[in-house]
């Protein structure tokens, strides 16, 4: 019963939506809202990255580069040149998608570690450019980004909005907005996975040789999914920049790329809801551990290590396997 429930993709989406609806009851103050909003944005990025890592089996160590490019495109277009937010976001995503396509074509011919190395280099190049083009990006000290704006509406985390007689605070509005974005991101990813493209990708993951033998154009699908995941990162980077109000080249850093990959691996490669859990855990840990000060990094590393040793498939797949095993045992006992 639970097993079929978990396997149905739309039900998963409904569970996620329910969680997002119920969650505000447990959020004590604006800071909690803010944290969850960030988690949603990062989770949507990781859902995109998971398409590449979890389904196509390609490792990208430079994804923060695309995230940072999106963030800076938005920051520069809206802040310096006064563009409205939505066109900036869309054009940014197209530009990043195009860059990913150009970069991806030669890179995705490489296999295994070479691909990781190449994406690593791309990420570094982007980070260095953002650091050094001081006139454009503000250099290592970063740059401010104006509030997000939809159809003349400014969505600021400090504003107050009334709609149909209900007054909501800016941080609540952002929470709702980010939740919707996450749901759309997940819905799109789930559909893509179930489509012929998704099946082709999984065949590439299973065995590239076998896939090409049965007629799958592996290079084409790999570069397609690379572009899609880069667009995910760029869009979320743009939203992140608006939400944060200030960006520094750290958003494109190697550490951030590693964090993204860690979220995928920790949550469960190839499990869309698992990687969301991974993002939540990794965003939450630094805040939970903040009180431990010096021990923070030690505990952070320890938690990651133990999870990888005892739950090598990732958090969610291990947990669901555990639960469904129990359920089956119980059902068996009754019969």
């Amino acid at each position: 019963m639970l097993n079929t429930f978990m396997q149905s993709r739309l039900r998963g989406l409904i569970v996620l939506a329910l969680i997002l609806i119920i969650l505000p009851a447990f959020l004590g103050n604006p800071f909690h809202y803010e944290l969850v909003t960030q988690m949603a944005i990062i989770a949507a990025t990781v859902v995109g990255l998971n398409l590449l890592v979890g389904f196509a089996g390609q490792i990208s160590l430079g994804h923060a580069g695309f995230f940072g490019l999106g963030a800076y495109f938005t920051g520069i277009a809206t802040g310096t040149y006064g563009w409205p937010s939505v066109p900036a976001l869309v054009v940014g995503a197209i530009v990043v998608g195009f860059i990913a396509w150009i970069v991806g074509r030669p890179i995705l011919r490489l296999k295994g570690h070479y691909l990781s190395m190449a994406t690593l280099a791309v990420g570094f190049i982007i980070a260095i450019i953002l650091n050094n083009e001081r006139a454009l990006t503000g250099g290592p000290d970063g740059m401010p980004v104006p509030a997000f704006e939809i159809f003349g509406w400014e969505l600021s985390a400090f504003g107050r909005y009334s709609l149909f007689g209900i007054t909501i605070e800016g941080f609540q509005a952002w929470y709702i907005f980010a939740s919707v974005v996450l749901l759309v991101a997940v819905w799109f990813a789930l559909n893509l996975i179930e489509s012929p493209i998704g099946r082709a990708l999984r065949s590439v993951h299973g065995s590239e040789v076998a896939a090409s033998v049965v007629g799958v154009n592996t290079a084409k699908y790999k570069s397609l999914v690379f572009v899609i995941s880069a667009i995910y990162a760029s869009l979320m980077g743009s939203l992140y920049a608006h939400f944060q109000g200030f960006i520094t080249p750290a958003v494109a850093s190697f550490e951030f790329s590693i964090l993204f990959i860690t979220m995928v691996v920790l949550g469960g490669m190839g499990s869309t809801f698992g990687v969301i859990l991974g993002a939540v855990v990794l965003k939450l840990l630094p805040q939970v551990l903040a009180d431990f000060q010096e021990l923070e990094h030690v505990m952070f590393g320890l938690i990651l290590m133990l999870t990888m040793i005892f739950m090598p498939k990732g958090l969610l797949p291990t947990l669901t396997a555990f639960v469904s095993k129990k359920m089956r045992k119980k059902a068996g006992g009754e019969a």
Partner: protein
Amino acid sequence: MFKTVIRRAGKCAAVAAAGLMMMSAQAAEPIKIGSFLSVTGPASFLGDPELKTLEMYVEKINEEGGVLGRQLELIHYDDVGNASSARNFASRLIRSDQVDIIVGGSTTGATMAAVPLIEQAEVPFISLAGAVVITNPVKKWVFKTPQTDRMAAERILTDMKDRGITKFGLISGTGGFGSSGRTQTLEVAEAMGMEVVADVTYSGSDTDMTAQLTNIRNTSGVEAVLNFGFGQGPAIVTRNYAQLGMELPFYQSHGVASDSFLELAGSAANGLRLPASPLLVPDSLPDDDPQKEVVQNYKAEYEARWDSKVSTFGAYAYDGLMLAVRAMEEAGSTDPEAVRNALENIQGYVGVTGVFNMSPEDHNGLDPESFRILEVQNGEWKLID
């Protein structure tokens, strides 16, 4: 639980007995001072002494009866030198911990990342970071205690001018500090009618700057050399400078004004000049210097408590905390608007870094003269001006 009630009651009684203030139930609440600092990570040399200073003086103020009859409570987070976590912790301080004032932000990046949020949340904020962008243009809720890099450039160039130098070569690091310093130096030089005849840079990971220095030496008309940088880069530049046997007057920025720089550069540093906090030469200050006592006390107290060398960066936190305390006392409350107004009107506060005269146009309140020009002589700092 019972114990803390007793302890708190005891404290209240002591304060009341001292006749400091009438205690109301509300006034017994501690005043919350929030801080986000780079205590670990690459900027820990800033955040570590800053945190130690805050901790020790919050303790001291509390022992002396607190502020407005209330105890201070320090809530601090470590941003690891990462701007986005600095912003998140600033948000946590404002929204979750609901602090009354924030004293923190070790680096310019961390400070600037938190500024939009702080401006919107309307909480007084005293930054401990250097770059001029923090207070120029003036932001309503943002103040800072260190001198700006622009002042450092002004101080150095004024000293050059006094020595009759009008053309100099500039070598700067490409990091945040170096590149901001370079921009300011170029602007100040133009304003003062001086000429930067050579302008070269090095990256943070370079291990030899002989090429750049040779380039400067071969530029015709160069009369002095200025290095704007942070970390180990300037020490390498200094050693290369000596190895090349360059005789021109040599200047460093305030970024290396610490004893560890002297250790790194060794005898090569002899003869170079830099602008620095009086904290490096507490005993050479003339007796009529208003800062002398403050500087000596801070140094003595810090070194006694932590058993480690005092640092200029910790002094920024000292001044930040004392300015905050003074503003709250003058405002007579912790109302953000009142504290902010009081901060803006602070005149003649004698700190370790300098004498602060705030105004609506100047949220830093220091003048370039608060930097002392020091020269390295026989491996030690010597006060020149």
